[in-house]
């Protein structure tokens, strides 16, 4: 009795939706970084409002990136768990 993992897991990998949330997370991180960097010229402005907006962007970016990283770890673990449960449950 042998276990042919090659075809079934490759097919599942091809259908895996993981690239979608990873791409969304990467795009979100890029937008956040862009927002922070684009707010840099606000340093030249002396109004309190501009300064507060820039500070807010930094706070938002810190919290958002922290949750993106944690969510990424969760997705990574769940993907491994699904893969190993498929191995233990038998291929199609």
């Amino acid at each position, binding site marked *: *009795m*042998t*276990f*042919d*993992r090659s075809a079934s897991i490759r097919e599942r990998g091809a259908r895996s939706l993981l690239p979608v949330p990873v791409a969304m997370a990467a795009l979100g991180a890029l937008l956040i970084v862009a927002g*922070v960097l684009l707010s840099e010229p606000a340093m030249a402005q002396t109004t309190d409002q501009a300064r*507060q907006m*820039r*500070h*807010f962007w*930094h*706070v938002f*970016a*810190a*919290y958002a*990136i*922290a949750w993106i*990283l*944690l969510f*990424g*770890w*969760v997705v990574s*673990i769940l993907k*491994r*768990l699904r893969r*190993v*449960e498929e*191995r*233990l*449950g*038998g*291929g199609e």
Partner: protein
Amino acid sequence: MSLAKIRAGSLVLGVIGVGLTLLFHWQVFFWVPTEASLGIVQRIFYIHVPAAWVGFLAFGIVALCSAIYLWLGEEKLDQAARAAAEGGVIFTTIVLISGPLWARISWGTWWTWEARLTLTLLLWFIYVGYFMVRNATDSPERGKKFAAVVGIVGALNIPLIHVSVLWFRSLHPQPVVARVDGPQLDPAMLTVLLTALGAWTALFFSLFLLRYATAQLEARADRLQAAGYAGQGLSGP
């Protein structure tokens, strides 16, 4: 402890972690007062400091499990160390990103090569290296032993990070909570900080247990595959 209990524990801790997370976010954005001198950007403190503490906790677990693994050779300890190392890298990454975002506003610079920042970056590189060393040899068993040594050595960095701001002149603030004379922090801010620490800790242990359970299942699948049973839906020996 059975895998079912580990996964149940992970779920319970996850629910607690999510609940505390919702609470501390409400506290950060709607309850805690704004720090007078640092302004709104000081709210990064409530993820930056707990992430550092949880990262250090994770690496402490790595060092402990690695040391006992080298002594007893028990595979489960290596799996636990690897699971903790993943979490440690994630939380240290949060520290290294949230810190510069705060520093840019407070210090006027994204980064400076002062003691605490440099040692924390070094810690991050050491534990990324932990994973690289695991896969760098032809023999998986040797890779695990090399990684265990890296894990133990890396943890020696942690007390240095804590005392670095005391020993060296530094832009980084001195400790305001972990002090000999007690926390020097507004009670409301301390409440939020401890809530955030509870949230991060619960989430870390939840994901640590889940990752450990996954590693156990992977080891079981490898054993079954080696014995020729995998894919047949049998539980095997």
